[in-house]
Every structure is written in structure tokens, then in C-alpha cells.
């Protein structure tokens, strides 16, 4: 009973808000008139923003009151304009001194070009009507009954309307659900905007990856140039000197050779450290689990490692996970003041999940620590997400997921399911039977009106049924061949789509 009363209350409030929307609709219409009638385009952004406030509120209420989550559908806002090398800001063919106009233009285009803006508008225009038809239906019907009783309509109408009002009142929870569905229909993102958002994220991730890769390569180049390479040059020069000294002063030559050996050892040490930074040998030799165990052994902290993986992820993913764990471990030792760390590596469906927990002081914040930022960048390349929970006083729990890290390797020839394969076989194997002997050839025989009925079954039938059977046979044969072609094609394209399109889209729309 109580929930029912709550539902009635919700319906009344939402309905009242929808009635207030009529004023907003009028305002919006006026603004549109100014924008498109008089060209006062500066009116557009505030209006659009106003509508967005209203729809954002509606989304929130739909989520909290009606239990249907409606995510915001807007395209990501444009990035702020960046100056050219000469300090000017370019927008299309114009140059500006300050970023104000390019920014304004970009924002205008962003709002104007976003289909979600127009869907918002459509929702706003229709909302009063829909709300009146769903939420306020009992009220509308009751009003109708009262009005009808005063005017000259058949006497049966007012009581009927009254009954309908009562029924609508009882069905109100269902009407509320219908209203939630309506909100979801227009206010949630379209497949297009989900994709656009995803593309922007991928774009940023790609930029960050390329950036960090380039700087990594620069670092390697510098290390090689200043380290091993320089030492090899020095060794070559010393060996040249040894060659000269060999006869004159064997003792000095021997001393120099000792130095060469030392230099070669140093070069090896440097190369070893460099290799460890690029791709640790244990990781290549043993995979993620043992590499992290080796990491744990080398750490001054007490580290426990649990690994539960049924397959080995791809090498780049492994490497990203390894270096992220390594960084988290270093953080725990350096900033967290931790003593014990536990690292848990597991698989969840196709995702690789790593949880690093330490008993340090906590207070780690990804927005401050450049180390955590680096991890986020590293993981972003694989759609990975880092979540850090680090209250002051600890413990710090860092979790990251690498989705699809453990997905089965793509097999291009995944076979058809057995049932479908049988159907395809029958279609290809027997399609000729209705098409040629019983279809086309029979048709020719029918046309030339032969005496030989032979094996043409259709010709044995009574006259009026002959043509329909011939046509049926031909179309049966053709559709068998068509099915034989279409079923495998559908199978492979479905698989390809399922791999390409994010799972949300299948669920959403």
C-alpha cells in the first residue's frame, strides 16, 4: 500500500513537472524563432544548455525514482583551442588572437551538431503530452468525466470515464514504467554516440601510447649512446693501444687488457639493466606469474603473490601488467611505507585482474602521483582501468582490469554449429532437384506441351495445379541455394560484428 502511495506521489510530481515544461517549451520555441528566424545564433547555446539541465534532471529522476538508469548521451565536449606555433588561434580559415572565438565556435558546433540535442528537444516538446497520457491519466480521465457530465453527451459516457479513471489509478505503477521506458527511448545514448565516445577515448589512449613509446625509445637510445656504445668505442681504442704496446711494453699492455675486460663487464651490466627495463628476461622466459614472483623476491617488502591464470596473455598485455605491478610495488615501498604487500593475479571471464594491497599509510591519489598516471597511460592502451582505494591510514588497494586480455585467440575458421551445417549441406546437395528436373525442365516440357510425362511429377497433376507446383518447385530450389549461401555468410559476419562492436551496443540498441 505504501509503495503504491509512493508511486502515486511520484506520478503526480513528475506530471506536475511535465506541465511546467510547457513554459519551457514556449521559451524554447521563442529562442528557436530568434535563432533561425532572426539569425541571433547566440541565443542557441544558452537554450540548449537550459534544455540539458532539464533533461539531466529527468535522467536522474528516471534513475533514482523509476529504477531505469539513463546515461547521458552527449558527444564529448570539444577540446580547448590550442595556439599555433606563432601564437594565433585558427578556426577553419580565420585566425584569432585569443582562444575565445574558436572555443565559442567549437562549442556551438558541438551543441548544434549533436543529435542528442535534438532528441532532447523532441523529448521536451512531447513530454507534457506523454506525461498527461501516462502519469496524469487518472486525473485527465476524471476531469473528462466531470466535463462530460455537464455537457450534452450520452449519459453512459461520464460513468464510463470515471471507471476508466479508477482503472488507470490502479494501473499507475505500470504507467510509471511506461514513462520510464519513454524517457529511456529519447534520453539515452544512441549507438552512434556510444561509438563516438569510444572513438574519442581510443584516440586519446593512442596518443598517450605513441607518446610514451616515443619517449621510451628516446631513453633507450640515450642509454645505449652514453653507455654501452661509448664503452665499446673506448674498448676499441684501448685495444688499438694494446696492439702498439704489445712488443714494446708487454706489462703495460697486460694492464690495459685488464681495463678492457673491466669495461666489457660494465657494458654488459648496463645492457642487462637496459634489457630489464625494456622486457624483463623472466617475463619472456616464464610469463607473468613467475616474473611477478621474481619481482616479489627482489623487493625489500614481504610480498605474497597468488596467481590464478588458465592461459598466458599476449606478450604486450603481459608486459603492461608486469610494469604496472612493478610500479605499484615501488610506490608501496617508497611512498606508502608499507611492510607487507599482497599481489593477486586472476582471470575474470576474459579479463585479467590484478589486485595489489599494501599495509602502508595510504593517501595515494592518481591525480597527484605521476607514477599512477603512468600506470593509467600504460593500461589505457589495452582498455585497462586502474582503481585505487587509499584512505589515509591505509590500507591501499590498487586494482586494475585488462579486459579481453585472456580472450581466445581469434580463429578465422570457427565451424558452423552442427544443425546449421546439416541444413547447408542439404540445401547445396538437393537444391538441384526441385530447381532443374522438377522445376525448369518441367516448365519447358509444359510449354512445349509434350506427350511424355516421364518423371515430371507436376504434369501428372490435374491441369489447374500444374503451373503452381512448377513455380513452387523453382522457387524452392532457388531458396535452397540462397539459404546455402546466406547461412554461412551470416555466421561469419555475426562473429565479426560481435568482435568489433562493444558489448554495450548489443545490450543497448
Amino acid at each position, binding site marked *: 500500500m505504501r509503495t503504491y502511495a509512493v508511486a502515486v506521489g511520484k506520478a503526480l510530481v513528475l506530471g506536475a513537472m511535465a506541465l511546467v515544461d510547457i513554459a519551457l517549451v514556449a521559451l524554447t520555441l521563442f529562442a528557436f524563432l530568434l535563432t533561425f528566424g532572426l539569425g541571433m545564433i547566440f541565443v542557441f547555446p544558452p537554450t540548449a544548455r537550459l534544455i540539458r539541465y532539464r533533461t539531466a534532471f529527468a535522467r536522474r529522476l528516471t534513475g533514482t525514482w523509476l529504477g531505469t538508469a539513463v546515461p547521458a548521451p552527449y558527444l564529448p565536449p570539444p577540446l580547448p583551442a590550442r595556439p599555433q606555433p606563432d601564437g594565433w588561434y585558427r578556426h577553419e580559415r580565420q585566425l584569432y588572437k585569443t582562444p575565445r572565438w574558436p572555443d565559442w565556435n567549437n562549442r556551438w558546433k558541438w551543441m548544434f551538431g549533436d543529435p542528442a540535442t535534438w532528441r532532447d528537444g523532441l523529448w521536451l516538446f512531447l513530454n507534457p503530452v506523454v506525461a498527461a497520457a501516462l502519469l496524469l491519466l487518472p486525473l485527465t480521465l476524471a476531469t473528462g468525466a466531470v466535463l462530460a457530465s455537464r455537457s450534452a453527451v450520452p449519459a453512459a459516457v461520464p460513468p464510463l470515464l470515471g471507471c476508466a479513471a479508477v482503472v488507470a489509478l490502479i494501473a499507475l505503477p505500470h504507467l510509471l514504467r511506461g514513462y520510464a521506458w519513454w524517457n529511456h527511448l529519447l534520453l539515452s545514448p544512441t549507438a552512434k554516440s556510444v561509438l563516438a565516445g569510444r572513438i574519442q577515448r581510443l584516440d586519446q589512449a593512442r596518443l598517450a601510447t605513441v607518446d610514451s613509446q616515443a619517449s621510451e625509445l628516446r631513453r633507450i637510445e640515450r642509454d645505449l649512446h652514453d653507455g654501452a656504445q661509448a664503452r665499446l668505442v673506448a674498448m676499441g681504442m684501448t685495444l688499438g693501444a694494446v696492439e702498439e704496446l704489445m712488443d714494446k711494453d708487454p706489462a703495460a699492455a697486460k694492464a690495459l687488457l685488464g681495463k678492457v675486460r673491466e669495461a666489457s663487464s660494465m657494458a654488459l651490466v648496463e645492457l642487462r639493466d637496459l634489457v*630489464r627495463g625494456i622486457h624483463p628476461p623472466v617475463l619472456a*622466459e616464464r610469463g607473468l606469474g613467475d616474473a611477478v614472483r*621474481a619481482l616479489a*623476491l627482489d*623487493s*625489500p617488502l614481504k610480498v605474497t603473490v597468488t596467481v590464478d591464470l588458465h592461459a598466458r596473455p599476449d606478450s604486450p598485455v603481459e608486459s603492461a601488467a608486469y610494469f604496472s605491478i612493478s610500479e605499484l610495488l615501488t610506490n608501496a615501498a617508497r611512498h606508502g611505507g608499507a611492510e607487507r604487500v599482497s599481489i593477486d593475479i586472476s582471470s575474470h571471464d576474459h579479463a585479467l585482474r590484478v589486485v595489489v594491497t599494501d599495509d602502508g599509510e595510504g593517501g595515494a591519489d592518481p591525480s597527484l602521483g605521476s607514477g599512477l598516471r603512468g600506470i593509467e597511460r600504460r593500461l589505457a592502451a589495452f582498455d585497462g582501468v586502474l582503481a585505487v582505494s587509499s584512505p589515509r591510514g591505509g590500507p591501499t588497494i590498487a586494482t586494475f582490469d585488462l579486459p579481453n586480455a585472456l580472450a581466445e585467440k581469434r580463429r578465422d575458421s570457427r565451424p558452423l554449429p552442427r544443425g546449421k551445417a546439416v541444413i547447408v549441406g542439404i540445401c547445396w546437395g538437393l537444391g538441384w532437384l526441385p530447381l532443374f528436373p522438377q522445376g525448369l525442365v518441367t516448365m519447358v516440357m509444359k510449354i512445349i506441351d509434350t506427350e511424355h510425362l516421364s518423371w515430371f511429377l507436376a504434369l501428372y497433376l490435374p491441369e489447374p495445379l500444374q503451373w503452381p507446383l512448377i513455380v513452387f518447385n523453382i522457387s524452392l530450389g532457388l531458396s535452397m541455394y540462397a539459404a546455402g549461401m546466406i547461412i554461412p555468410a551470416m555466421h561469419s559476419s555475426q562473429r565479426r560484428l560481435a568482435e568489433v562492436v562493444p558489448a554495450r551496443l548489443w545490450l543497448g540498441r
Partner: protein
Amino acid sequence: MSLRVVIAEDLYLLRDGLVHLLQAHDFEVVAAVESGPELLKALIELRPDVAVVDVRLPPTFTDEGLQAALAARRAVPGLPVLVLSQHVEQLYARELLADGSGAIGYLLKDRVFNAEQFVDAVRRVAAGGTAMDPEVIAKLLASTVRHQPLGALTPREREVLELMAEGRSNAAISQRLFLSESAVGKHTASIFAKLDLVPSDDDNRRVLAVLTYLNAARG
């Protein structure tokens, strides 16, 4: 009688170098192989006095050599194996020491540069001793640094402990640190007392005790 040795190394130059080096020091090289399966076969069929094995070998170029060596030691307990690698890992050292039967060496490839010490290490392993790379020991000690009893050691005792963990005898340690052998003996006794270990005169058992202790201290 010269010691019979099997060498496993995939790079021709290095393999050749090792063969020459060991032959020059009076070893008999009975086989020089270049892949994991060949190595396992050679170890089990030829039963050499000692094997010198590279960790990374064909066909997979992962830890093929290490796995072959471990497999051979499972089949022939106590088969002396000296493992060479471009990098040393505590993880691998643990695995090699795990069976507790000694006759194990684990060195960086750089150590071959110093022929005398390298050959000494090979002989030590062949005799059932241990030869751990100083870098492994350094890592082990670095990661146990917070552990209490180790903190109680004097710097000199730490030096002795490091050399002991590498597998050196008292005589070798005394030579290295320019101490008398009896002084080294005193240090080792003190170390064993501080770490609460049962003292032992047998070099090999002593090393294993120390390594086990260090490993255990890691938790």
C-alpha cells in the same frame, strides 16, 4: 683424471670459447650441444662429471636449459650442473637449490671472462659444492636487509657471509679477504651463532644452510 663435461650453449662463438677454455684447463668435453632436448639426452646418457648449461636455449628460447637441467637432476639426483645466464634471478636460484642436494652453480655469463675463477667454480660444482653468483647473493641480502638477525652482523661478518653463500670454502674466503683461516673460522662460528644455525664443517652443507636460511627469511 680429467673431468668429463657437457656444454650446452646455442651461440656458436660462446660454445666454442667455452670448449677451448675448459679443454685448456684439462677438462674433457664429452658433448657440446645447442638445444634443450639434446642437452637432456646428453646428460642422461653420458652422465658427465659436470654440465655447463645456458638458461636460454632453442627451440623455445625461454628457460629450456634450466628445465632440462632440472629434469636431468630429477632423473639423476645430485648431477652437478653449472647454469650460466645473461641475467640472474633469485627465483631460478631457489629452484636450482630446492632439492637440497648441492652440486649446483648459477653464474652470470660475464664470470667466464675471469677464466681462473670460472674454472674454479666449475671444479667446485663438480666436487658437489655450490657456486652462486655474487649478484644473486647481493640481491638475496638486499631483500632480506630488514630482517633482524642479519642486522646484528658486523660488516666483516656480512662480507664473510656473502662469500660463504657464494659457495666458497674457509680457505678461499681467507685468501679473498686477506685474513687468516682461523679468523675466518671465528667469523663463521659467530655468524652461525647469531643466525641460530647448527655449525657444520662440511663446506657444502654449510652453504646450503646459509642459503636456506636466507630464503626462509624472505618469507
